[in-house]
């Protein structure tokens, strides 16, 4: 799953730490999501989208490999 959290964060001039605090997770979790090393839960994805004032689809995007079993 791709995401553009880094872009949105830069647009909002927000650090990973600030985003993490607002979303109620630790900074490493935000870094892991940005790097694609960790897929967030629906709740966390919704929280992140809400923080940026966007929808989940505007931040997270499925890749072709996500459809493979």
């Amino acid at each position, binding site marked *: 799953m791709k995401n553009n959290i880094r872009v949105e964060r830069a647009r909002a001039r927000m650090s990973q730490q600030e985003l993490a605090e607002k979303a109620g997770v630790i900074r*490493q979790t935000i870094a892991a999501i940005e790097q694609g090393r960790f897929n*967030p839960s629906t709740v966390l994805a919704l929280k992140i989208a809400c923080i940026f004032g966007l929808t989940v689809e505007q931040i997270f995007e499925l890749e072709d490999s996500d459809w493979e079993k």
Partner: protein
Amino acid sequence: MKTIKMLPHSWKIVGRVLLALCLLLFVSCFRAVVHDMFLVNSAQGYDSFGAGWASSLVVIFFSIGVVLLAFSQEYREDERIIHIRQQALARTVILYLFVLALNLVANLVLGRMLSMDSLVQVMLIKRTFLCVPAFILYYLLIFKLSLWSENKKLSRDEE
């Protein structure tokens, strides 16, 4: 959001104190404890009451300490850490079964009879490195190692 119910972070301190006590006791009564825990005939050459008492305390402190350390939350526990915990638990089960199988094969190769009694002994009682607290210790080590390596990879991504 659903989370796994765990002990508060402060319980780690109690766990560390118990493990420190266990280590102190193990070092101070090393010969007696090793003799009582690992050697076949514990009655020979040592005060069996003292050795039994010391080794029992070592096992109790170790068991409780490891459980408290393994099942209390990290300073800040979030869903990624819970995910790492679950992965560590799965890896521990595989490792534990591998160690168990290796031990059974070693027993067969060494020519010991594989009876139900010896199987139970191997799995639960006599072999300290295969008992339940040891399983929790494997889990704790694998979890801490995974968490450390994940955080190390992510620390390169600091802003």
